[in-house]
Protein backbone atom coordinates (compact mmCIF):
# COMPACT_ATOMS: atom_id res chain seq x y z
CA UNK A 1 0.00 0.00 0.00
CA UNK A 2 2.78 2.39 0.93
CA UNK A 3 4.60 1.71 -2.33
CA UNK A 4 1.45 2.46 -4.32
CA UNK A 5 1.13 5.84 -2.58
CA UNK A 6 4.76 6.68 -3.21
CA UNK A 7 4.58 5.72 -6.87
CA UNK A 8 1.35 7.61 -7.50
CA UNK A 9 2.69 10.68 -5.68
CA UNK A 10 5.87 10.64 -7.78
CA UNK A 11 3.87 10.33 -11.01
CA UNK A 12 1.53 13.17 -9.97
CA UNK A 13 4.55 15.33 -9.14
CA UNK A 14 5.97 14.80 -12.63
CA UNK A 15 2.61 15.58 -14.26
CA UNK A 16 2.20 18.78 -12.23
CA UNK A 17 5.76 19.77 -13.15
CA UNK A 18 4.95 19.37 -16.84
CA UNK A 19 1.78 21.42 -16.32
CA UNK A 20 3.74 24.22 -14.64
CA UNK A 21 6.33 24.15 -17.44
CA UNK A 22 3.59 24.54 -20.08
CA UNK A 23 2.02 27.36 -18.07
CA UNK A 24 5.42 29.05 -17.81
CA UNK A 25 5.60 28.94 -21.60
CA UNK A 26 2.27 30.81 -21.64
CA UNK A 27 3.58 33.36 -19.13
CA UNK A 28 6.69 34.06 -21.20
CA UNK A 29 5.06 33.90 -24.64
CA UNK A 30 1.52 35.09 -23.88
CA UNK A 31 0.56 37.73 -26.43
CA UNK A 32 -1.47 39.84 -23.98
CA UNK A 33 -1.24 40.62 -20.29
CA UNK A 34 -4.53 38.90 -19.31
CA UNK A 35 -3.05 35.67 -20.72
CA UNK A 36 -0.13 36.04 -18.34
CA UNK A 37 -2.41 36.82 -15.39
CA UNK A 38 -4.52 33.71 -15.99
CA UNK A 39 -1.40 31.58 -16.46
CA UNK A 40 0.06 32.86 -13.17
CA UNK A 41 -3.22 32.05 -11.43
CA UNK A 42 -3.11 28.50 -12.80
CA UNK A 43 0.56 28.15 -11.76
CA UNK A 44 -0.46 29.06 -8.22
CA UNK A 45 -3.18 26.41 -8.23
CA UNK A 46 -0.63 23.86 -9.45
CA UNK A 47 1.66 24.95 -6.61
CA UNK A 48 -1.15 24.23 -4.15
CA UNK A 49 -1.39 20.71 -5.58
CA UNK A 50 2.38 20.36 -5.39
CA UNK A 51 2.43 21.40 -1.73
CA UNK A 52 -0.24 18.77 -1.03
CA UNK A 53 1.84 16.12 -2.79
CA UNK A 54 4.94 17.12 -0.81
CA UNK A 55 2.88 16.84 2.39
CA UNK A 56 1.97 13.29 1.36
CA UNK A 57 5.59 12.50 0.46
CA UNK A 58 7.09 13.56 3.78
CA UNK A 59 3.97 12.39 5.71
CA UNK A 60 3.16 15.57 7.61
CA UNK A 61 0.07 17.68 8.29
CA UNK A 62 2.00 20.90 8.88
CA UNK A 63 1.73 21.91 5.23
CA UNK A 64 -2.06 22.29 5.29
CA UNK A 65 -1.71 25.90 6.41
CA UNK A 66 0.69 26.52 3.55
CA UNK A 67 -1.81 25.21 0.98
CA UNK A 68 -4.57 27.43 2.37
CA UNK A 69 -2.17 30.38 2.47
CA UNK A 70 -1.13 29.94 -1.17
CA UNK A 71 -4.79 29.87 -2.17
CA UNK A 72 -5.61 33.05 -0.26
CA UNK A 73 -2.61 35.01 -1.51
CA UNK A 74 -3.27 33.78 -5.04
CA UNK A 75 -6.88 34.97 -4.87
CA UNK A 76 -5.90 38.41 -3.58
CA UNK A 77 -3.08 38.73 -6.10
CA UNK A 78 -5.32 37.77 -8.99
CA UNK A 79 -8.00 40.25 -7.86
CA UNK A 80 -5.34 42.97 -7.71
CA UNK A 81 -4.03 42.09 -11.18
CA UNK A 82 -7.56 42.00 -12.62
CA UNK A 83 -8.45 45.37 -11.10
CA UNK A 84 -5.23 46.87 -12.44
CA UNK A 85 -5.86 45.51 -15.92
CA UNK A 86 -9.48 46.70 -15.93
CA UNK A 87 -9.30 50.09 -14.21
CA UNK A 88 -5.61 50.96 -13.94
CA UNK A 89 -6.02 51.51 -10.20
CA UNK A 90 -6.09 48.82 -7.50
CA UNK A 91 -7.61 50.68 -4.52
CA UNK A 92 -10.30 53.15 -5.57
CA UNK A 93 -9.99 56.62 -4.11
CA UNK A 94 -13.58 57.80 -4.65
CA UNK A 95 -12.72 61.47 -5.07
Amino acid sequence: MNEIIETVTAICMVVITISIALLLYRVVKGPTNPDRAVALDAIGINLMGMAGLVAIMIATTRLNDVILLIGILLFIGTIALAKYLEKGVIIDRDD
Partner: protein
Amino acid sequence: MVKTNDLILKTMTVLISFILFGFSVNLFFAGHNAPGGGFIGGLMTAAAIILMYMAYGERAINKVLPINYRTLLTIGLLIAIATGVGSFLFGEPFLSQTYDYFNFPIFGKMELATALLFDLGVYLTVIGVTMTIVLTISSDR
Protein backbone atom coordinates in the same frame (compact mmCIF):
# COMPACT_ATOMS: atom_id res chain seq x y z
CA MET B 1 -15.02 55.99 -18.11
CA VAL B 2 -18.18 54.06 -17.35
CA LYS B 3 -18.80 53.09 -13.77
CA THR B 4 -18.31 49.35 -13.41
CA ASN B 5 -20.48 47.12 -11.24
CA ASP B 6 -18.44 44.79 -9.00
CA LEU B 7 -21.40 42.92 -7.53
CA ILE B 8 -19.76 39.47 -7.57
CA LEU B 9 -16.49 40.80 -6.14
CA LYS B 10 -18.25 42.76 -3.40
CA THR B 11 -20.49 39.86 -2.34
CA MET B 12 -17.59 37.41 -2.29
CA THR B 13 -15.46 39.86 -0.31
CA VAL B 14 -18.01 39.91 2.51
CA LEU B 15 -17.74 36.13 2.85
CA ILE B 16 -14.06 35.64 2.14
CA SER B 17 -12.76 38.44 4.34
CA PHE B 18 -14.52 36.89 7.35
CA ILE B 19 -12.92 33.53 6.56
CA LEU B 20 -9.57 35.30 6.28
CA PHE B 21 -10.00 37.02 9.66
CA GLY B 22 -10.86 33.66 11.23
CA PHE B 23 -7.88 32.00 9.61
CA SER B 24 -5.53 34.77 10.73
CA VAL B 25 -6.73 34.49 14.34
CA ASN B 26 -6.26 30.72 14.08
CA LEU B 27 -2.70 31.21 12.80
CA PHE B 28 -1.98 33.72 15.57
CA PHE B 29 -3.05 31.38 18.37
CA ALA B 30 -1.61 28.24 16.74
CA GLY B 31 1.88 29.76 16.63
CA HIS B 32 3.04 28.24 19.90
CA ASN B 33 3.20 24.61 18.82
CA ALA B 34 2.26 24.62 15.12
CA PRO B 35 3.18 26.70 12.06
CA GLY B 36 1.92 30.25 12.44
CA GLY B 37 2.50 33.05 14.87
CA GLY B 38 2.21 36.80 15.07
CA PHE B 39 3.96 37.63 11.81
CA ILE B 40 1.99 35.44 9.42
CA GLY B 41 -1.23 36.11 11.34
CA GLY B 42 -0.71 39.84 10.98
CA LEU B 43 0.02 39.45 7.28
CA MET B 44 -3.21 37.48 6.82
CA THR B 45 -5.24 40.12 8.65
CA ALA B 46 -3.65 42.80 6.49
CA ALA B 47 -4.49 40.72 3.41
CA ALA B 48 -8.14 40.56 4.50
CA ILE B 49 -8.24 44.35 5.04
CA ILE B 50 -6.55 44.93 1.67
CA LEU B 51 -9.15 42.69 0.01
CA MET B 52 -11.89 44.84 1.55
CA TYR B 53 -10.12 47.98 0.35
CA MET B 54 -9.83 46.57 -3.17
CA ALA B 55 -13.50 45.62 -3.38
CA TYR B 56 -15.15 48.64 -1.73
CA GLY B 57 -12.75 51.50 -2.27
CA GLU B 58 -10.85 53.66 0.15
CA ARG B 59 -13.61 55.94 1.43
CA ALA B 60 -16.08 53.19 2.38
CA ILE B 61 -13.52 51.14 4.31
CA ASN B 62 -12.15 54.21 6.04
CA LYS B 63 -15.68 54.68 7.36
CA VAL B 64 -16.09 51.01 8.35
CA LEU B 65 -12.64 50.58 9.93
CA PRO B 66 -11.63 54.00 11.29
CA ILE B 67 -8.20 52.78 12.40
CA ASN B 68 -5.07 54.90 12.21
CA TYR B 69 -2.53 52.22 11.29
CA ARG B 70 0.43 54.34 12.42
CA THR B 71 -1.09 54.42 15.92
CA LEU B 72 -1.64 50.65 15.72
CA LEU B 73 2.04 50.18 14.81
CA THR B 74 3.09 52.23 17.84
CA ILE B 75 0.75 50.33 20.17
CA GLY B 76 2.16 47.02 18.91
CA LEU B 77 5.74 48.13 19.51
CA LEU B 78 4.81 49.39 22.98
CA ILE B 79 3.19 46.05 23.87
CA ALA B 80 6.27 44.15 22.69
CA ILE B 81 8.55 46.42 24.76
CA ALA B 82 6.23 46.22 27.77
CA THR B 83 6.41 42.41 27.84
CA GLY B 84 10.20 42.71 27.82
CA VAL B 85 10.34 45.39 30.52
CA GLY B 86 7.67 43.59 32.58
CA SER B 87 10.14 40.83 33.41
CA PHE B 88 12.12 43.41 35.44
CA LEU B 89 9.19 43.54 37.92
CA PHE B 90 9.97 39.94 38.91
CA GLY B 91 13.73 40.41 39.06
CA GLU B 92 14.33 38.49 35.83
CA PRO B 93 16.51 39.45 32.83
CA PHE B 94 15.02 41.44 29.93
CA LEU B 95 12.49 39.51 27.76
CA SER B 96 12.22 36.56 30.15
CA GLN B 97 9.13 34.49 29.34
CA THR B 98 7.10 32.24 31.58
CA TYR B 99 3.96 30.12 31.36
CA ASP B 100 1.41 28.49 33.62
CA TYR B 101 -1.68 26.31 33.41
CA PHE B 102 -5.15 27.73 34.04
CA ASN B 103 -8.62 26.26 34.10
CA PHE B 104 -11.22 27.80 31.80
CA PRO B 105 -14.97 27.16 31.87
CA ILE B 106 -15.33 25.83 28.33
CA PHE B 107 -11.85 24.92 27.14
CA GLY B 108 -10.68 23.21 30.32
CA LYS B 109 -7.02 23.27 31.28
CA MET B 110 -4.96 25.51 29.00
CA GLU B 111 -1.38 26.66 28.92
CA LEU B 112 -1.07 30.45 28.89
CA ALA B 113 2.38 31.83 28.04
CA THR B 114 3.54 35.43 28.26
CA ALA B 115 5.08 34.87 24.82
CA LEU B 116 1.51 35.33 23.52
CA LEU B 117 1.58 38.97 24.65
CA PHE B 118 4.85 39.52 22.80
CA ASP B 119 3.26 37.85 19.77
CA LEU B 120 0.30 40.23 20.08
CA GLY B 121 2.75 43.12 19.78
CA VAL B 122 4.31 41.57 16.68
CA TYR B 123 0.80 40.99 15.25
CA LEU B 124 -0.31 44.61 15.67
CA THR B 125 3.03 45.93 14.37
CA VAL B 126 2.88 43.79 11.24
CA ILE B 127 -0.69 44.92 10.51
CA GLY B 128 0.31 48.55 11.06
CA VAL B 129 3.41 48.40 8.86
CA THR B 130 1.71 46.53 6.01
CA MET B 131 -1.39 48.72 5.93
CA THR B 132 0.71 51.90 6.22
CA ILE B 133 2.82 50.84 3.23
CA VAL B 134 -0.16 49.83 1.07
CA LEU B 135 -2.37 52.82 1.91
CA THR B 136 0.50 55.30 1.52
CA ILE B 137 1.31 53.96 -1.94
CA SER B 138 -2.35 53.77 -3.00
CA SER B 139 -3.14 57.34 -1.93
CA ASP B 140 -0.14 58.67 -3.86
CA ARG B 141 -0.91 60.62 -7.00
